């Protein structure tokens, strides 16, 4: 290749290569200053003149008929403006739901889980509303609770939902099963005969909570036109709108939704929470109504990660090649469907993990029970499977007598591998390389707690409880790797919309990007500005607040927003660029022949040729004329999985991460200190490297949480939640969280914008099994459930 410095030929300019602050740079968050000064307006910060406070009364039992509801005493309280029950719902539409509309806005005759909304109150002070709600008398006649597969599918089991007419009822073996997805490929029984070693395992995954810090909240303001304005924290404005408007009896254009500041999401804001309740009370009272859950209510106010039972059988030859896999994954969906069908699709189609196994027999189901409803959480079905298949990989490697990492590398999938669904992996799948990188990282020093002044107890299991100075402490190391799909799968029309405008403001060219993308902390707003700079060659980019005045952006879920809404912003920018160039040709085309002949680019606020020659200032081209485009953008289509065989081009893209965990366990007390949790991940292209690393570290930590501390405890006798608080449901603190070194690999996926790969979820998968593997390594225990608690390590469980 010619060296341009010596030949004097100008290097070819490509779009975006000369503009500062574009993709690939670690530009800073546009909302950063507002967030550090306390001025960023979260949904719980909304305030309005004359505002009322809404409160929800929730069921105190998990499964019961409602015999009667008496609201008279609550209504009589001074300061109370409205009390509403099922009977006050304004239209025939009284249910909502993401896929299946099985969730009552307010309970009708029956409650199906602990904490189900029964009545709502509006009052002039939140405490008045709470006290009034407590004065509503609800008489329940309790019913037997369904809490697991056996009770759900018993011949005489009460049906959680009578008269199901959803599109899954035709293929499920029992009406208390939401959805079933088998995947059959090859012949697992036949292939099993080639196995020299067969390993079977039964695994349990506990119920994890998203535990986003900003509680469910929002403000509904009644409009003069009979409509309502809702300021809300959500993951998908248009999905909310589609569910809210019919219940209110309003056309969608009279429910105007604006995204407020969102204090984290992690899947927990995919379903509606207080949206309809606030709108109902606002329309009833004619006053703005704000609802803010406290933490206790938040634990009841959103779905959780599906707890699961996983039954696995793997075989391997004595050379260490996997022969077959059989598995059965039972997910507890709780009382309402939420995202359960899609979680089933993910769990089954990703149940093999990032490995090559030609002969598989897979089944995944989700149950209806009286446990808390479960739905979307970061990792979405792939998390539970990864915990189980990675435990299996360690057992198999040990059986074969191979190094655990080498065993995985030997069986690792790569580009071209056929998934159990028959879908080829048609972009880089550097599974073996990620494992190599993670293993090559230097280990933290042994006895890292020792300092010149003796043991620093803060670095030991038990921490400042001062339970050991190193006695009984054993180190363990564990590895894991996982595969996650990116984007909505199984034939979903997974599009996004972006409106991009270019104009001159104060003599400078400015781009404005308007989407309905929910910024929940992930940094989509940062990336949109970067894309606009790269594609339009401007410095000044304004990101408009997300609302329903622009087309849907789809959900901030499934690691999809940078891919899909990023793709939509890129696409709209390209269309704007064409229009700007047309405008330029019209105004200045006669001044220079390059306007007609050269490939033209927008760089540094100018129109330039691909040789770098400047033709015009963008400010002159755009003088007096703004250019605007709103366009939808889609990734390549997917298709549904066959309901009998599970075959189908179901996924858009895959995402891979690997972890190495180093733990130290006080084997006498059963206390675990995670010393380091290193991650290697392929991100395709890091649009914002700083944000990429932040996502990987955050996801890793949520995986750590469900390895050693996080679990919603549901009483199996009553199906009641026993620990709905941050006192009893523990998430990792900064003391629980280790150093998280991150190695980012960038192998482009040619199907995706800029070659990028959705990154948010993959690190949540392998983190948990890596920690478990390390604890097993330290203790020699089998540990087939997560989270691990002290009693599991001391034999006192």
């Amino acid at each position: 290749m010619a060296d341009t410095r010596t030949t004097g030929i100008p290097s070819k300019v490509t779009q975006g290569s000369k503009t500062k602050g574009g993709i690939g740079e670690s530009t800073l968050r546009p909302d950063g200053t507002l967030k550090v000064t306390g001025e960023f307006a979260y949904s719980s910060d909304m305030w309005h003149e004359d505002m009322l406070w809404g409160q929800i009364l929730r069921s105190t039992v998990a499964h019961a008929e409602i015999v009667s509801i008496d609201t008279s005493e609550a209504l009589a309280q001074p300061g109370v403006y409205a009390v509403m029950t099922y009977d006050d719902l304004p239209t025939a539409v009284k249910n909502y739901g993401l896929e299946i509309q099985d969730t009552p806005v307010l309970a009708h005759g029956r409650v199906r889980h602990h904490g189900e909304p029964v009545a709502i109150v509006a009052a002039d002070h939140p405490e008045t509303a709470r006290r009034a709600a407590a004065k509503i008398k609800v008489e329940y006649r309790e019913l037997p609770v369904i809490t697991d597969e056996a009770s759900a599918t018993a011949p005489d089991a009460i049906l959680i939902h009578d008269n199901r007419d959803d599109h899954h009822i035709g293929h499920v073996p029992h009406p208390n099963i939401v959805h079933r997805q088998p995947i059959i490929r090859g012949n697992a029984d036949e292939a099993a005969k080639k196995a020299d070693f067969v390993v079977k395992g039964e695994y349990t995954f506990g119920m994890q909570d998203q535990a986003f810090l900003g509680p469910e909240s929002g403000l509904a303001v009644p409009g003069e036109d009979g409509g309502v304005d809702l300021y809300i924290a959500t993951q998908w404005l248009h999905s909310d709108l589609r569910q809210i408007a019919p219940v209110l009896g309003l056309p969608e254009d009279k429910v105007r939704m604006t995204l407020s500041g969102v204090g984290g999401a992690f899947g927990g804001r995919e379903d509606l929470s207080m949206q309809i309740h606030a709108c109902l009370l606002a329309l009833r009272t004619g006053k703005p109504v704000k609802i803010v859950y406290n933490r206790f209510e938040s634990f009841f106010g959103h779905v959780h990660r599906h707890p699961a039972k996983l039954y696995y059988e793997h075989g391997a030859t004595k050379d260490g090649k996997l022969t077959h896999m059989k598995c059965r994954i039972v997910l507890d969906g709780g009382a309402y469907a939420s995202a359960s069908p899609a979680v089933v699709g993910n769990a089954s189609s990703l149940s093999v993990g990032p490995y090559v196994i030609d002969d598989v027999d897979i089944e995944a189901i989700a149950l209806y029970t009286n446990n808390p409803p479960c739905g979307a959480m970061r990792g979405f079905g792939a998390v539970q499977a990864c915990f189980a298949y990675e435990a299996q990989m360690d057992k198999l490697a040990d059986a074969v007598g191979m190094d655990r990492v080498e065993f995985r590398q030997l069986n690792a999938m790569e580009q071209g591998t056929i998934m159990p669904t028959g879908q080829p992996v048609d972009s880089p799948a550097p599974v073996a390389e990620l494992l190599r990188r993670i293993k090559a990282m230097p280990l933290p020093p042994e006895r890292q707690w020792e300092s010149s002044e003796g043991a620093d107890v803060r670095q030991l299991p038990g921490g400042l409880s001062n339970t050991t100075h190193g006695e009984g402490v054993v180190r363990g190391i564990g590895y894991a790797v996982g595969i996650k799909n990116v984007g909505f799968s199984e034939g979903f029309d997974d599009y996004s919309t972006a409106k991009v405008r270019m104009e001159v403001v104060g003599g400078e060219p400015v781009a404005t990007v308007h989407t309905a993308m929910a910024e929940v902390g992930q940094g989509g707003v940062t990336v949109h500005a970067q894309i606009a700079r790269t594609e339009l060659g401007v410095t000044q980019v304004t990101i408009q607040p997300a609302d329903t005045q622009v087309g849907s952006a789809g959900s901030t879920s499934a690691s999809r927003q940078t891919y899909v809404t990023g793709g939509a912003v890129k696409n709209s920018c390209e269309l704007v660029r064409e229009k700007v160039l047309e405008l330029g040709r019209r105004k200045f085309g006669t001044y220079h022949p390059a306007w007609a002949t050269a490939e033209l680019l927008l760089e540094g606020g100018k129109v330039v040729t691909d040789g770098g020659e400047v033709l015009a200032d963008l400010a002159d081209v755009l003088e007096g004329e703004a250019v605007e485009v709103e366009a939808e953008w889609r990734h390549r289509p997917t298709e549904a999985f066959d309901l009998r065989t599970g075959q189908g081009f179901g996924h858009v893209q895959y995402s891979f991460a690997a972890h190495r965990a180093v733990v130290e366990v006080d084997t006498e007390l059963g206390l675990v200190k995670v010393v380091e949790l290193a991650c290697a991940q392929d991100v395709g292209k890091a649009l914002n490297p700083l944000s990429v690393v932040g996502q990987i570290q955050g996801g890793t930590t949520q995986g750590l949480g469900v390895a050693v501390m996080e679990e919603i405890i549901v009483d199996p006798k009553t199906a009641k939640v026993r620990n709905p608080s941050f006192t009893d449901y523990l998430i990792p603190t900064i003391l629980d969280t280790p150093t998280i070194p991150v190695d980012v690999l960038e192998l482009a996926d040619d199907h995706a914008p800029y070659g990028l790969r959705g990154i948010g979820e993959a690190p949540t998968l392998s983190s948990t099994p890596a920690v478990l593997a390390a604890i097993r390594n330290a203790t020699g225990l089998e540990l087939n459930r997560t989270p691990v608690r002290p009693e599991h390590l001391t034999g006192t469980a």
Partner: protein
Amino acid sequence: MRVNFTVNGRPQEADDVWEGESLLYVLRERLGLPGSKNACEQGECGSCTVRLDGVPVCSCLVAAGQVEGREVVTVEGLADFAKQRAEHGGCATGACGSAEKAGTSLDAAKQWAAKGHDSQTGEGVELSPIQEAFIDAGAVQCGFCTPGLLVAADEMLERNPNPSDADIREALSGNLCRCTGYEKIMDAVRLAAARQSAPEGV
């Protein structure tokens, strides 16, 4: 009841306060200062951390009546508070700059700082060093934990200007963050400490 106290250097009077209201509620709903956050309202998460007569407290656990006649600093006043502290020769405790270097050098800390600037970031707003460091190090994602962490970290650096990593973790262990995995928060505090102890103009 009526409560008179000082918030961010200004005398404030809150009327019609119900006896059960917390300081957090009065700040957020009566004084128009929603920067202190309401993530758990049971003293577990630290999102509502403010300084009460200089001491970091969870404002959700302080009854409004307890602050009568006292001084409160919230995240909204943090930049001013830090500026005045700097003008009065360092920290309130006099410990700043005197300790041995247990912390991170500026050169080492700089590697965590993001390069490049977003046109909408930080223009025309005066920030405290810890606020700037949180932005630069990528310690802010959803941002809901940020106000409490900033108040707690600022107070820690006032007491201990050259903290070790274990010191930082201990001091911030009452502040939950669900987004970042804390690594970039560690980076931010190290960066602020390093900048604070470096000579002027570096």
